[in-house]
């Protein structure tokens, strides 16, 4: 490659102009005398032509470069404007989604509440009505999950989902999450086992960790059959790695690379026809990532799935016993 230790600049043009003036004086001195002087005068004149030609080229190059810089600047400004407008539009859209989703929750909870109240007197209702209520509750529950996921997604996109980490006992959070879903698991004939020992301290946001564990447990319930089991335990090598392992149907190889990706929704129907939004796993991934940790998956089609939540390690000094 050509080496460029020297910059051709306006200064070069200005130096050349000064030297050129000096050369003209010399030519005038040389013109009158000997043959040799005349040759010299001719050579100096040619040098001036050379300088002028070179100056012109430099000037043209500089003008072209200046124009290019100007054009590029205008293009950059336009691009910046477009970017600002796009960002504003996205913000507005996210705000709208958050507002609408939030407002949808209130009537939905009312509907669910009335349906559950009606179920209290199930014996007085016909089988058909009971079945219809059950189906309506299922649909409401799915819709509630969808709204929750959209709300969380909107928080992530707006940078509102920032973890407030403290040293917490993962066993307590996991136990709380599992208790909420034991009933759901039992209903499908799935054995949900908590093997996390007490005092498994991790550095995490309590609320968000609960959200992730809940999400992964419900995901496992969704893809397990009657007789399957789900175990939640901490890794033997590292207690800050929580494993949620099931013996369910596993995940197909063709979608495994996209399960943590919002843009490529991979939601599939559960073993009993349960519907999902496809946002759950990407959301978990982002939450754990925002902790500075990682979420990984190992699966075998027909042989079950294990999710590994790795959180930043805590030190003994952090533990408030």
């Amino acid at each position: 490659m050509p080496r460029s230790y020297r910059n051709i600049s306006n200064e070069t043009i200005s130096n050349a102009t000064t030297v050129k003036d000096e050369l003209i004086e010399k030519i005038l001195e040389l013109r009158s005398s000997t043959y040799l002087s005349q040759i010299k005068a001719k050579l100096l004149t040619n040098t001036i032509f050379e300088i002028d030609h070179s100056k012109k080229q430099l000037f043209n190059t500089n003008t072209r470069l200046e124009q290019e810089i100007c054009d590029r600047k205008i293009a950059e400004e336009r691009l910046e404007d477009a970017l600002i407008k796009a960002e504003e539009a996205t913000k507005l859209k996210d705000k709208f989604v958050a507002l609408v989703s939030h407002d949808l929750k209130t009537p939905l909870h009312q509907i669910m509440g009335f349906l559950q109240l009606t179920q209290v007197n199930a014996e007085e209702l016909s089988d058909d009505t009971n079945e219809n209520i059950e189906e309506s509750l299922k649909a409401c529950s799915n819709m509630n999950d969808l709204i929750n996921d959209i709300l969380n997604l909107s928080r992530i996109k707006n940078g509102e989902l920032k973890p407030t980490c403290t040293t917490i006992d993962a066993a307590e959070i996991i136990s709380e999450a599992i208790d909420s879903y034991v009933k759901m698991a039992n209903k499908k004939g799935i054995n949900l086992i908590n093997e996390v020992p007490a005092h498994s301290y991790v550095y995490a946001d309590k609320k968000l960790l609960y959200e992730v564990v809940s999400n992964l447990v419900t995901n496992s319930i969704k893809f397990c059959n009657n007789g399957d089991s789900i175990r939640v335990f901490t890794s033997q090598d590292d207690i800050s790695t929580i494993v949620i392992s099931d013996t369910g149907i596993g995940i197909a190889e063709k979608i495994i690379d996209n399960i943590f990706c919002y843009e490529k929704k991979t939601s599939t129907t559960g073993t009993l026809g349960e519907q999902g939004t496809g946002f759950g796993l990407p959301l978990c991934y982002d939450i754990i990532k925002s902790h500075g940790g990682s979420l990984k998956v190992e699966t075998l089609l027909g042989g079950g799935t294990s999710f590994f939540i790795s959180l930043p390690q805590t030190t003994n000094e952090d533990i408030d016993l």
Partner: protein
Amino acid sequence: MTKYDTKNSISITREIHWVGFYEKSTKLHCNTYILIDDGEAVIFDSGSIPDFPVIMRKVIDLVNPNQISLLVCSHQDPDVCGNLAIVEDVIDREDLRIAAHINTIRLIQHQDLKSQFYSVNNNDYKITLKSGRVLEFIFLPFLHSPGAIATYDPKTKSLFTGDVFGAIADGDWDMFAGNGFPENMGSFHQAYMPSNSHLKKAMERFEKMSIDRILPQHGTVIEGDKVQVAIDYLKLLPVGLDLIKD
């Protein structure tokens, strides 16, 4: 086609620049170099009369002519120093010196030169620049003139060799040795150098030196590992009298 902009000066190192004249139709084009040392400039083999306007314009792009304090003349050929009289006029310095071997000075003084001659053989084959930088001269008798010299800059390990290591550009010329090297040096040396015994002596001397680059007055700049390749090639090359049969 050369990838370098030969219409303008070309940087060889931060301090050494090519300010020569290249025309595709000329197979034996001339390389003039300028060394810029702390504001002081040295020109090596300033070139011919027809090339003068282009060379001087390239010099002016880099320095003010009155920064030039020394003109080194490797030998007396018209393509090497035919323009000295007009170059010294443009530089216009009373203390301007022309460094050459005395055998060269005797011949070039017929160009009606006004500057002081610096006879390298009377000055221990050395010259010290204002910054304290020392340039060393190497006597290369009959390669291909009786007073031929090369100049060595120990700071950059650069050797300005005049006609030695010169080459004819038979196809596309490039600034740095590449295609056709080292064979492209063959025909030029065979035609212009007296004999292999002369050439071999010089090569054996160069071999003992630490050289990063060779800057000949014709042909291409030879750098790095190619330096030894060039020396090895010329050491064995039959030239001049070796090729003339009785």
